[in-house]
């Protein structure tokens, strides 16, 4: 009896330790980011860092203004969201409301398989197929533009958005559908006026998680967006994102230098953005459950 209690105690402590360790890891990572990154603000004030229009990390004196990178990330992400959100919601509606039997299963599995494609493979396809197409279509000097990145990232966000939206739609009680149809609504009216509003908070969460994935994506954008650190004026220009900057430059910096800590500071900014997106998504998901 005593032995059994002891065993219970040990197991309980182990579970507690693994739970706490995941929180501790996140805190440690954040602390490490802060420690390495905050140093840059001794040479560059925070305002100049966030709003500076020039990112010349190895010029003399160096300039660490991440506005072009923020704009690049925002443009690529915004473009990807604009493309993927309508498409994803439409596919989710198709899977949950229109497709029947094996077609439904095939679509569902297919979309989920999409998530399993490594981003570098999508980037590879983008470079060899999409970029030349865009260059020819718009008569550009290069096909490596924000648009190329947006289109590819839209495909990466789709599986997340589709499957969470589809869950949200399936969670809408069948009675709502019947009630709407019984009140003389067509299937389309039922979907747009009852189903989508009823699933709205789940859909917002899905979009947020999809966008979160896009913002954090590095490999494909580095391959596809041309990496020019200038403030873009259209989707057809090369841009450089926050993530691509870190990935491209980290290998060349001297540990402890201003450039090094500037890259970590970019990491802090990215962390803050992803964190707020996840937080918003979480709030919406909880709102669904509370109802």
């Amino acid at each position, binding site marked *: 009896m005593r032995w059994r209690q002891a065993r219970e105690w040990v197991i309980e402590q182990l579970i507690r330790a693994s739970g706490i360790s995941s929180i501790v890891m996140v805190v440690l990572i954040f602390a490490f980011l802060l420690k390495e990154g905050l140093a840059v603000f001794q040479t560059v004030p925070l305002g100049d860092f966030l709003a500076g229009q020039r990112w010349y990390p190895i010029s003399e004196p160096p300039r660490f203004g991440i506005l072009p990178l923020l704009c690049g990330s925002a443009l690529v992400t915004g473009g990807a969201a604009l493309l993927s959100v309508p498409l994803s919601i439409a596919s989710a509606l198709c899977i949950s409301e229109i497709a*029947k039997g094996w077609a439904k299963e095939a679509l569902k599995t297919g979309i989920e398989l999409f998530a399993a494609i490594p981003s570098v493979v999508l980037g590879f396809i983008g470079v060899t197929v999409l970029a030349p197409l865009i260059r020819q279509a718009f008569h550009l000097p290069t096909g490596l533009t924000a648009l190329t990145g947006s289109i590819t990232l839209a495909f990466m966000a789709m599986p997340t958005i589709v499957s969470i939206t589809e869950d949200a739609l399936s969670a809408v*009680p069948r*009675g*709502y559908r*019947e*009630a*709407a*149809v*019984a*009140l*003389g*609504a*067509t299937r389309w*009216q039922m979907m747009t*006026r*009852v189903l989508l*509003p*009823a699933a709205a908070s789940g859909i917002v969460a899905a979009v947020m998680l999809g966008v979160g994935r896009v913002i954090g994506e590095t490999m494909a954008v580095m391959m596809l967006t041309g990496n020019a650190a200038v403030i873009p004026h259209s989707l057809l220009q090369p841009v450089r994102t926050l993530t691509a900057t870190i990935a491209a430059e980290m290998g060349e910096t001297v540990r402890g230098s201003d450039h090094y800590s500037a890259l970590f500071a970019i990491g802090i900014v990215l962390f803050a953005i992803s964190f707020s997106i996840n937080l918003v998504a979480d709030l919406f998901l909880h709102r669904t459950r509370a*109802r």
Partner: protein
Amino acid sequence: MVASDAKMAAQEWSVWYGATQALRAITLDILPREILGIIGPANSGKTSFLRSLNRMGELNPRFRCAGRIWLDGKDLYQGLDSQQVRCRVGIVFALPLPLPLSIRENVVYGPRVRGIRDRRRLDQLLEQSLRAASLWDEVKDRLDLPAMRLSGGQQQRLCIARTLAMEPEVILFDEPCSGLDPISTAKVEETMVQLKSRYTMVLVTNNTKQAARVSDRVAFFLMGELIELDRTGVMFTTPRDSRTNDYLTGRFG
């Protein structure tokens, strides 16, 4: 058998879900401005029949049917479009399930999807339907609150109001009081009796006493067949079929 003055009529009406037959050649008529009660044990086909009357049954992909149903002499399944049918023949479900909208939006949902946009007309329909469902006095000060905040009985009367706002000719009730307490039940029944002067109604119920209280005529369904149909007083005092008698006296079901 089908009376010429019937509001609705079923003729040799059968329904299958996949390979299972739910209704076997039902023939009956529904007279204008009557409440027709349909009673019978579980799985007797009551609800299948009710859902055939406004073409809700066909939402189930395994639904198949044979025979005919008439509405004012027109074939429900051939001469009319399903949206049109559902506007003319409204239904109130067993579980009160308001849409996740405000009280006002729930009631004007039907008129809206039919294309009525005029604000004054919608307000008029709103008040008129809520009054007819005896709910107006209880909710007139909080029309923009979510409908989910109402009590179960109020929600069910809201569902009745929502159906009335479509200005239907026939209203189907599918065990409308199964989830309600006796006081709410009494209110819903009272509402039904008041509506009788203007609407034709069909009431499916598990509660034989309710059928006796509310309906003018009663049909007894058993295993997908119509066993007996008669005026309520006759059916409950001198049923012709022994199975009806057994059911009414509580020997089964």
